[in-house]
């Protein structure tokens, strides 16, 4: 019964996602949803290392940016689009390996500090390497997704492609969660010493989580560059890194559904509150605090709580 209960919201959410373009074709709304989907993929990546393996990572926005800039620079210099997911993945895998190898032997806070530094380095490179990255004004007119000349036209087709990418990202994350590796990640977060004494190589497990997360961000960056078609350093700054972490916390650490809720809610909310002018930040901040205080497990923890109440357990 429980698996059937779990299944129908997923089916409903998928149908709703597919039906949205039938309700609105407002390009502003669709564009916002596209960004929400991309952010969700990045937050799903962050969930591997932070939600499951328990390591604080403020470098996720930089990996997002590395993927986006790699793709933009590659396609603008004439490489076919099909090469870009591979190029972006190679760049972020190499960067996360170089960053993770020395830091993963240490505990939580060292990774936090290292990744803050890494994010700042990437931002400075992007801002100052103007001939290649376009500096603060970013890169425009990035060639779109195209496989042997066939590619999506218009935002709605991009929306569907991104929905498919998100579905794949969710399925892979759920599959890894149910595997040896997923259990090892959560064991590492819950008790590093007990995990080690159960035969888990915790250093390797943390590194794997970090690199898988970086790959999610890098591939989302690739899709960002080639579906939004414009990138600038602001989208991948330290502020963005903190926002991604907030999405994960508000949605619910360690929960795939939580990642989706958190990323979609916190991408759309600032836009929805824009009519408040400067006051929107106040309401936004209060909302985030309210979730953290009232539902420390994040938005995802509200669902089961409602079910328990109905069943009279609580």
């Amino acid at each position, binding site marked *: 019964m429980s698996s059937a209960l779990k299944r129908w919201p997923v089916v409903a959410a998928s149908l709703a996602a597919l039906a949205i373009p039938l309700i609105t074709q407002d390009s502003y709304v669709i564009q916002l949803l596209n960004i929400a989907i991309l952010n969700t993929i990045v937050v799903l990546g962050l969930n591997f290392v932070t939600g499951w393996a328990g390591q604080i990572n403020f470098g996720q926005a930089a990996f997002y940016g590395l993927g986006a800039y790699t793709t933009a620079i590659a396609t603008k210099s004439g490489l076919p689009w099909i090469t870009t997911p591979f190029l972006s993945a190679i760049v972020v895998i190499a960067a996360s390996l170089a960053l993770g190898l020395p830091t993963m032997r240490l505990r939580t806070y060292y990774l936090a500090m290292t990744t803050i530094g890494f994010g700042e380095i990437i931002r400075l490179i992007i801002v100052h390497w103007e001939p290649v990255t376009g500096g603060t004004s970013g890169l425009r007119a990035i060639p779109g997704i195209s496989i042997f000349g066939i590619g999506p036209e218009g935002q709605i087709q991009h929306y569907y492609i991104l929905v498919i990418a998100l579905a794949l990202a969710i399925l892979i994350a759920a599959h890894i969660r149910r595997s040896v*590796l997923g259990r090892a990640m*959560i*064991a590492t977060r*819950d008790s590093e*010493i007990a995990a*080690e*004494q*159960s*035969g888990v190589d*915790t250093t390797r497990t943390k590194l794997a989580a970090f690199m898988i997360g970086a790959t999610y961000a890098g591939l989302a960056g690739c899709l960002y560059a080639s579906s939004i078609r414009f990138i600038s350093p602001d989208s991948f700054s330290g502020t963005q890194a903190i926002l991604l972490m907030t999405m994960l916390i508000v949605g619910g650490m360690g929960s795939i559904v939580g990642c989706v809720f958190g990323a979609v809610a916190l991408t759309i909310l600032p836009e929805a509150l824009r009519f408040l002018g400067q006051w929107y930040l106040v309401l936004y901040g209060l909302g985030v605090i309210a979730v953290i205080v009232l539902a420390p497990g994040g938005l995802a923890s509200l669902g089961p709580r409602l079910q328990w109440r109905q069943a009279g357990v609580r």
Partner: protein
Amino acid sequence: MTSEPIITARGVTRRFGGLVALDSVDLDVPKGIVHAIIGPNGSGKTTLLNALSGASHADAGSIRIAGEEIFRLKPHRIARLGLARTFQNIRIFDNLSVLENVKVAAACNKPTPFFDILAANARHKQNETGIDSTARDALETVGLAGRADDQPSQLPYAQRRLLEIARALASKPSVILLDEPAAGMNMTESMTLLDTIAKLKSHGITILLVEHNVRLVMGISDRVAVLDFGKKIAEGTPSEVQRNPLVIEAYLGRRHRHA
């Protein structure tokens, strides 16, 4: 006691600043027995377990498990060589189900390459099936098979201790170190624990037991070593150790001998 020792420790020394927590301890644990380590508070029992399991390395000495030198190896390497343990203050993975807790250890010597996991190929599926059955067997042995799908937080305290034992068992070890397994248990629960320990022994697993409750130890142990201030002061069968004046002194103090 003629069988070769499964654990051979020589000159194991551990200092914390000026305090010598373990002072050149030698220990031989023959295969297949229940070997207890007792001693007053702060005598170095847990420090010795930590040194053996690699949780906190010794400063000097040699430790061999089935002939293999493990001194200063990482704990997961020692676990893979066949040494499992439980903890004095329970360390369960709270965000995994009861079954998944045990599965973590059941994967101990079954490394699956990341590619196999991602491809969800036959090797991955075969591995997961093997892990699942090993884990369920271990839960069965400690009597927790019925709670497989629960969260560990739903288990009463004594069963959480049994879950730790199941987890240790699932790595298919040759030695299990039990750190005060009866702590906080009532009489009935301690009896269940003793049954479980006897069951582990009948599986051919060597048990190294650190325990505060001397009465519990004497009934089940084949050999007992006594630590006091980081030194091994006595070793032998339970009845030999109980009669040893040094042991009586360590537990009761000097004056009581004259009383």
